[in-house]
């Protein structure tokens, strides 16, 4: 088993390096985590006021009055959400170009803005209608335009971000860039350098959009039914989103995350670099359904993992913290003390590396099993409608129960977390006991001898010392 884990590490580490080293994967992940995440969270907070955690069936008393008031004014109350989380494709389109340009050491902010401009062109159907009228901004409703910048536009946003930066790189390589003498201030010079790439990016997008609208929309063209590039691409790639929202996909994702964590690699970090666009598409589809007064049905999204599976951190280790706190082993007890506060906020690296769980053949078993069982159960109860699906993404540090309550706007979410915690506790306990027994046996044999008193003698490190010379 020990050998197996070491073999896994040897296999998984290089594979992870290859995925993560891919500059596009890096740019996409950073776009979500670095650029879009604040807007996702802020939008989610506004969403609490639009979709409050009050059951829709309540129609009496104060809560009922609140419910009716919220439903009456929902289109207005939705606005702060629509211009934050609702524009996720715009933030991602900016972020992909920004982070990819940083990788190439190019002008990140101007290429980010060029990417946004290019993306916006893709969000308006362009063409000539059957009766000779024109499709332009005047012909369409603003909500049609904005819709393209939501989840439906994520794929095109990613492609645009990459395309704009790669086009800029090509133009640079072949010298199609306006270069000013070096005496010109940097900001002015950069503004000129971006002109040809920006002109070509927006121009190409304009022609592509015209072609996409003309070739894919129902004929004769009509403002109400004309298609845009985001919708055309989503129609082609929609099967990916559908496939991602199934039980096999959910189980596969959690097993992959936990296998990576079992050898001490940040599984959520790696899996999310592939899965984040799919999670967000599912989550936004839920919000759109609720906004339209229909039931939300998509299960596999970011909060499905962060709020309902990673209880206390990846591996559902929160119950283990309490076992550690009351452990007879001094080592485990001290790890428990360090882990309690981080654990409340779903951070569990002290446990993963302190117990340790990573590369530990005994503790890896519950570490893999509990989250897999939990994910399966959660998927099934949500599919059966016993617990609402997640409609909101709280920050990953949201403590248990509160997170479960907020993410689907129902006490059932918190109750599900309680059941999940109980399952994790039952699975972890026997393995914790075996590991504790082994540590206690080891401790008897060896008298602690570290010889390290924790002080640092700066004479060993002259380059960082304070000694005046």
């Amino acid at each position, binding site marked *: 088993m020990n050998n197996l884990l070491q073999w896994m590490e040897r296999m998984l580490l290089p594979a992870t390096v290859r995925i993560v080293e891919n500059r596009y994967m890096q740019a996409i992940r950073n776009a979500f*985590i670095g650029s879009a995440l604040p807007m996702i969270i802020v939008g989610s907070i506004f969403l609490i006021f639009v979709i409050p955690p009050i059951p829709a069936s309540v129609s009496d008393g104060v809560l009922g009055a609140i419910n009716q008031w919220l439903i009456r004014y929902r289109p207005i109350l939705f606005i702060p959400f629509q211009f934050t989380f609702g524009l996720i494709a715009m933030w991602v389109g900016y972020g992909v170009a920004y982070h990819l340009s940083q990788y190439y050491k190019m002008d990140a902010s101007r290429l980010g803005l060029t990417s946004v401009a290019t993306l916006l062109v893709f969000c308006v159907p362009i063409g000539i209608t059957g009766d000779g009228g024109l499709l332009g901004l005047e012909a369409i409703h603003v909500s049609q335009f904005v819709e393209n910048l939501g989840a439906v536009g994520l794929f095109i946003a990613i492609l645009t971000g990459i395309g704009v930066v790669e086009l800029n790189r090509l133009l640079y390589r072949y010298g199609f860039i306006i270069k000013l003498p070096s005496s010109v201030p940097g900001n002015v010079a950069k503004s000129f350098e971006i002109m040809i790439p920006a002109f070509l990016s927006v121009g190409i997008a304009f022609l592509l959009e015209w072609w996409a609208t003309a070739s894919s929309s129902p004929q004769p063209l009509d403002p109400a039914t004309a298609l845009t590039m985001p919708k055309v691409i989503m129609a082609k790639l929609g099967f990916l989103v559908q496939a991602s929202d199934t039980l096999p996909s959910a189980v596969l994702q959690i097993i992959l995350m936990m296998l990576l964590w079992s050898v001490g690699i940040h599984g959520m970090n790696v899996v999310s670099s592939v899965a984040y666009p799919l999670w967000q598409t599912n989550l936004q589809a839920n919000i759109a359904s609720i906004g339209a007064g229909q039931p939300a049905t998509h299960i596999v999204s970011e909060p499905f993992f962060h709020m309902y599976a990673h209880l206390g951190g990846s591996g559902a280790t929160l119950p283990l913290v309490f076992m550690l706190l009351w452990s007879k082993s001094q080592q485990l007890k001290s790890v428990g003390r360090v882990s309690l506060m981080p654990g409340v906020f779903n951070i569990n690296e002290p446990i993963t590396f*302190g117990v340790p769980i990573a590369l530990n053949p005994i503790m890896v078993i519950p570490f893999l099993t509990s989250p897999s069982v939990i994910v399966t159960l959660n998927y099934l109860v949500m599919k059966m409608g016993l617990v609402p699906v997640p409609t909101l993404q709280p920050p990953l540090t949201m403590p248990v129960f509160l997170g479960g309550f907020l993410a689907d706007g129902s006490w059932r979410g918190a109750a599900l977390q309680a059941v999940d915690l109980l399952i994790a506790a039952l699975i972890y306990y026997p393995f914790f006991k075996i590991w504790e027994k082994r540590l206690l046996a080891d401790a008897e044999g060896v008298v602690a001898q570290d010889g390290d008193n*924790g002080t640092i003698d700066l004479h*060993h490190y002259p380059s960082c010392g304070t000694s005046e010379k």
Partner: protein
Amino acid sequence: MAYKRIALVCSFGLSTSLLVQAMERAATAAQAKVDIFAIGTSELAERAETTDVFLLAPQVRYMRPTVEKYGKPVGVVDGMIYATADGAKALRQALSLFQEEGMQ
């Protein structure tokens, strides 16, 4: 002598912030001229210029080849040091990386 800037890298910069505090205490005790901060992996590119040494949390050690491209010394914190937030040992590792850098 300029302050040495030590970046501790993890997924979001959350879990390393525990170790940062411990390292700061150790640095104060030893009067080491260091500036220690936690960053997430998505901030690597923009912080590379203003960092002198990178210490990777063990769970993001797969980023090592990526980080090495910035041309600064890179180390991976040992799992147990990381878990117990042993600031002195982590700081010692960072300082050793400077020394090795200086000798080359």
